[in-house]
């Protein structure tokens, strides 16, 4: 399987609508982070496996620094919030405060099946997903997502790798 082409970002054509303007702006912001991105992590109720894979991004096998990514505990220094867990209601206000403490421009990446709406359904304990409580820019599936999947997700977030999700059909027997 191909590890995903590192497409050069398409040059910006002059936007002709509000939606296109927003998209161009989003890509410009994402590209601004392309060379140096500081990541803050946020656990909204995970089982701790996602955190272990995230920690391994800094380990020798994966070494996120070689790609210009860095972890930071300081919200003021952070560009991207990497969120795990199903957004427990008891935690939601802490999550929002963490997001608000980060200066704009900023990105939010939801990682793991719990954060994407799987595993836990919305109920009295949790919202079931990060959506609705934080504005998510990139979704990374997995249980837990491996460090490779996390790296691909971060590269997609800063527009340095092409997204493949739209093209995947999950059909076997010839179709793509």
């Amino acid at each position, binding site marked *: 399987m191909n590890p995903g082409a590192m497409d050069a970002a398409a040059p910006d054509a002059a936007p002709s609508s509000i939606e296109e303007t927003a998209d161009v702006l989003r890509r410009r912001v994402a590209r601004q982070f392309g060379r140096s991105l500081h990541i803050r992590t946020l656990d909204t109720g995970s089982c701790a496996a996602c955190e272990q894979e995230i920690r391994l991004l800094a380990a020798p*096998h994966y070494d996120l620094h*070689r790609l210009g990514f860095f972890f930071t505990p300081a919200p003021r220094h952070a560009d991207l919030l990497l969120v795990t867990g199903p957004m427990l209601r008891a935690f939601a206000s802490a999550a929002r405060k963490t997001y608000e403490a980060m200066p704009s421009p900023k990105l939010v990446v939801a990682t793991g099946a719990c954060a994407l*709406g*799987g595993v836990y359904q919305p109920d009295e304990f949790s919202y079931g997903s990060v959506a609705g409580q934080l504005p998510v820019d990139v*979704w*990374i599936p997995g249980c837990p997502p491996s460090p490779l999947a996390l790296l691909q997700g971060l590269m997609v977030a800063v527009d340095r790798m092409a*997204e493949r999700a739209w093209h995947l059909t*999950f059909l076997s027997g010839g179709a793509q």
Partner: protein
Amino acid sequence: MPQWFVRGLRRGLVTTRYPARPDPLAALLPGPPSFRPDALTRQVADDLVQICPSRAFVRAGDELIFDAGACTACGRCRERAPEAVTLSGEFELAATDRAALVKRIPLRDE
């Protein structure tokens, strides 16, 4: 201290070249399933909806809606219907739009 440097130099680089080159780990990872539409009857589709503990399946008429975002790659769907469900081998699943992860799988004409 010197023992650490010697040890490290002797071992050499272990860092993956991903994304520039493939990483052998990818072949070991469980990933979301792939479906064979010609083996997906309504009954099988309903079984999959019922068996998935993460509610990644919904049947809508003649389509099975599969949410790869909710999928945990637990393999229960593959165990239930191995003729219809195989491994996709995909792990590069990141999406900027949540809807990109929700797929409509056509069921077999019956």
